[in-house]
């Protein structure tokens, strides 16, 4: 029981991070209908930026943790958004209006490019940083097993909840959100009505990248190690989460992320840890077979 509770906490933490990355996939998919394969690598870049920023702070003897976290978040979000913008501008915008597969291939190329750029400029070795947030709250002191929620876990969950609330507000209430949704439904009509479609799409990429940057900082804080390959698996998992929840749906992305996180940690804890990826994908296949448009996705009826 205590063990399960601990897995629940771990799963939620993991799921929150997947969810944050998944939103980037889902938003981009919603607005231009493509799988942004480079998104996982954008997340990886953000983790490296976070590592560098933490190291600079350590060198400058900054000890206040809130201050450090704020600084790292701002720096990481800034630079990562720039990467999100640049990727869209160079690799996807020239391909708008061409076939569905062209941007996908371009994205895969971009992903390979980013991975290798980071490997070349930052080195192929795993980068560890000293723990930023240690300790946590003991929830249940069982004689055999102690259930604990780490400060970093708490930070991740709370940040995610705040971000999600803010994000939902932004998409539903602000002019940008309105333009974003308009472009999602009908890009041509939106542009006829004076929405700057190119800019809206750029902002969408930057927003997705910003959320991935938050996830990148959180991963750095939580695990304390980063390497140039983390983008791939995280990206795939997050994309799976987006599809599971119903691609194009924001709550779906979050729900999908949480589910994947929970499945993974429970599967790894109780069954075979090696096969946790198999479990994730099998469940995805099952869900899609029963609900071909994901859990919260709108069923796509093609009018004939």
């Amino acid at each position, binding site marked *: 029981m205590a063990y399960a509770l601990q897995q629940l906490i771990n799963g939620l933490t993991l799921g929150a991070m997947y969810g944050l990355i998944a939103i980037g996939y889902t938003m981009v998919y919603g607005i231009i209908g493509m799988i942004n394969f480079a998104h996982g690598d954008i997340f990886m870049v953000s983790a490296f930026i976070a590592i560098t920023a933490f190291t600079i702070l350590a060198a400058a003897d900054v000890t206040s943790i809130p201050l450090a976290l704020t600084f790292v978040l701002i720096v990481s979000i800034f630079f990562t958004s720039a990467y999100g913008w640049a990727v869209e501008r160079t690799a996807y915008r020239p391909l708008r209006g061409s076939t569905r597969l062209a941007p996908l291939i371009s994205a895969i190329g971009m992903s390979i490019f980013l991975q290798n750029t980071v490997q070349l400029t930052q080195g192929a070795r795993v980068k560890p940083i000293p723990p930023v947030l240690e300790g946590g709250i003991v929830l249940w002191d069982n004689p055999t097993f102690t259930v604990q929620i780490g400060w970093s876990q708490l930070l991740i969950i709370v940040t995610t909840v705040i971000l999600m609330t803010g994000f939902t507000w932004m998409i539903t209430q602000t002019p940008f959100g309105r333009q974003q949704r308009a472009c999602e439904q009908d890009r041509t009509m939106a542009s006829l009505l004076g929405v700057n479609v190119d800019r809206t799409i750029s902002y969408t990429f930057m927003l997705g990248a910003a959320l991935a940057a938050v996830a990148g900082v959180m991963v750095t804080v939580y695990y304390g190690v980063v390497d140039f390959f983390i983008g791939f698996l995280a990206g795939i998992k997050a994309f799976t989460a987006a599809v599971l929840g119903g691609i194009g749906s924001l709550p779906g992305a979050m729900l999908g992320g949480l589910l994947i996180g929970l499945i993974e940690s429970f599967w790894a804890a109780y069954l075979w840890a090696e096969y946790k990826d198999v479990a994730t994908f099998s469940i995805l296949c099952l869900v899609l077979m029963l609900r071909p448009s994901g859990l919260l996705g*709108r*069923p796509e*009826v093609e009018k*004939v």
Partner: protein
Amino acid sequence: MSAHDKGTLLSVRKLTMRFGGLTAIDDLSLEVPAGKITGIIGPNGAGKTTLFNCLTGFYKPTTGTLRLAHPVRGELRLEKLPSHRVARDAQVVRTFQNIRLFPKMTVLENLIVAQHNVLQRASKFSIAGIFKLPGYRQAERAAIERAAMWLERLKLTHLADDPAGALPYGIQRRIEIARALCVDPVLLCLDEPAAGLNPRESAELNELLLYLCGELDIAILLIEHDMSVVMNVSDHIGVISYGRKIAEGTPEQVRNDPEVIKAYLGEDEDEAEEAIARKIAAEGSNEEGQPA
């Protein structure tokens, strides 16, 4: 207009189709005689295309039966067949309101693809095809000849080797009809074939339709807003409004039916407003049930 009666080909009984809260077809019954042209008219959103979708297996009707008296295979229940079997076994073939050709393939290829089942059988799991055995070669030649015949008949021969998607709208409509004819239909369902045609083209269409049912004995179900087409060629017309059949009869009878005039023009302003309100209410509930 064929003179003698050959009985009923398709009988639609108490057909209802609901999308969430919206009833697109409401308890509709209709008889389609063999070897004749049956027109279906009605205002926008009346449920005409939905009727076709139910007939051809793209939608499963909520309730109701669709019985086809097939000249060879006997009675078939269309509502129980998947869409490809409706075309293959029941030989009920349709065209689409928004043209659906295979745009990158040439006109000829479009017509050959329509004969897929015949050719596939002749190719014996592709083995006869791969080794170019005589049996398959003969079948392929026959398919090309058949396609060429329809191309000739529809004045498309000079475009045979052009990609279909690049051609003008009116021509694409004709290609779609030619393609449907290559499936060898007993019942041909045409969804607004005259939309976007100029007067000369629609006159040619009239002629073609009369030829198809007069000479080849193909029954035709025709959805059309262009009255010059429907009124001139139909033997029989059904009028649908809000999913219900509101009138039925010869073109002459339908033209003078007060219900029909009301459905198209609205009797007075109150009536029209009420109609609009009804439609909005229906669509509102539609959105709840199935967000569009």
